[in-house]
């Protein structure tokens, strides 16, 4: 036997397919698959809502508090004020099955949330930016609108959907950021309509309490004009419509109903 030197053969251990072809097929195919799964899961959330009546939900989450919020001391003066405003507003929503609760999240971000069991959480960063009670009333009314539409339960369901998708994508260690952003954006489009309808509900509550809707949207005009706090605004925008569109929609709504947009403003004192 003789030794015959040969060069290693090419094309056995390495696929000929261009990596971009594989990337494209995988991204498009899996994106499509995930979209179908998300739509199916959202549909199931809607179905599940029928099986959890509001009374049951209110009882179930009666004293529930999410773990990731940093509450302020129960003696905080702001909490008293919030509770009294909330109580006055809730008289205009008598059919509510919830006993509303309110907590302050001691965070710099600007946000307000409606959570299961009638819990409203507002951030300290948001309270700092408020100038009149009317602005506060609109924000609380808006959150009540979410309860009225049961958006908070949908949001909870969507949260579960997002975490399932997150687990599926990150479990494989692939493009986690991208996958989550796409899922988040797709679901955010869904919640825009809910925000608008909660806005309408809030405006109605404010009208009944004060007899006018003046100053309801001044808060949004202000944060729109301010461009200093970009990080805070980004968090706010991630779950709410942009202030511009929102103010326009509110003015149209008030105009269409002939609601007075001027009146006496109640100062906020804390």
């Amino acid at each position, binding site marked *: 036997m003789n030794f015959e030197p040969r060069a290693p053969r090419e094309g056995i*251990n390495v696929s000929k397919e261009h990596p971009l072809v594989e*990337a494209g097929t995988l991204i498009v195919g899996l994106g499509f698959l995930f979209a179908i799964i998300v739509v199916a899961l959202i549909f199931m959330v809607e179905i599940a809502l029928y099986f959890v009546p509001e009374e049951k939900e209110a009882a179930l989450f009666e004293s529930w508090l999410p773990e990731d919020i940093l509450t302020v001391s129960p003696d905080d003066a702001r909490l008293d004020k919030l509770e009294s405003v909330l109580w006055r507003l809730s008289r205009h929503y008598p059919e509510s099955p919830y006993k509303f609760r309110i907590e302050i999240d001691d965070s710099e971000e600007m946000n307000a949330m409606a959570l299961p069991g009638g819990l409203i959480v507002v951030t300290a960063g948001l309270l700092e930016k408020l100038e009149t009670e009317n602005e506060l009333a609109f924000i609380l009314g808006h959150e009540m609108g979410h309860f009225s539409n049961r958006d908070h339960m949908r949001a909870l369901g969507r949260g579960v959907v997002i975490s399932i998708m997150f687990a599926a994508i990150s479990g494989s260690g*692939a493009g986690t950021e*991208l996958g989550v952003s796409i899922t988040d954006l797709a679901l955010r489009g869904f919640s825009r309509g809910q925000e608008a309808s909660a806005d309408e509900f809030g405006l109605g509550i404010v009208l009944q309490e004060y007899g006018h809707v003046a100053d309801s949207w001044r808060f949004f005009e202000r944060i729109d004009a301010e461009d200093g706090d970009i990080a805070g605004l980004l968090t706010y925008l991630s779950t709410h419509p942009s202030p511009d569109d929102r103010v326009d929609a509110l003015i149209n709504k008030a105009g269409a109903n002939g609601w007075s947009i001027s009146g006496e403003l109640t100062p906020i004192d804390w």
Partner: protein
Amino acid sequence: MDDMEKVSLALNFGLPLLILIGTYLIGSYIEKKHFRKIKKREKALHGFPVTTFAAMPSKWQVAGVELVSGNVVVSLDYFKRVIAGLRSIIGGRVKTYEPLLDRARREAMLRMAESAKKRGYDAVMNVRLETSRLANTSGKRESVAGVEMLAFGTAVKLEKN
């Protein structure tokens, strides 16, 4: 859509996409360059026997032996990692890893053979390949920092007569 939203959109989508494209371009450039170099070196070593035989032909007169080894550690780029991650959801050939491991094998063999030739040996016999995974312990999840490829064999010097 206002400016803020555009910024947030760009941060959420643009950045990972930019990293993906960037790492693909850089990664495939490095890969092509490496393959070119490997082929050139393989050509230079053409005719130098590298075999997996454990036993030597009886008529060979051996003047000296030595253990020679070649070792290389390769890592993935972000693009390969993402695509392989997507692949792992549905299964199948992880095609993006194939050139990487091919490079590692050939590079390790070349280093071994080159070192044997440099030291005046005539052939490398009983060649074996070993791989081991280098884990990255930083961060919460355990991830692969790279793969080590080790080629080793017995270099033999033949009696010249």
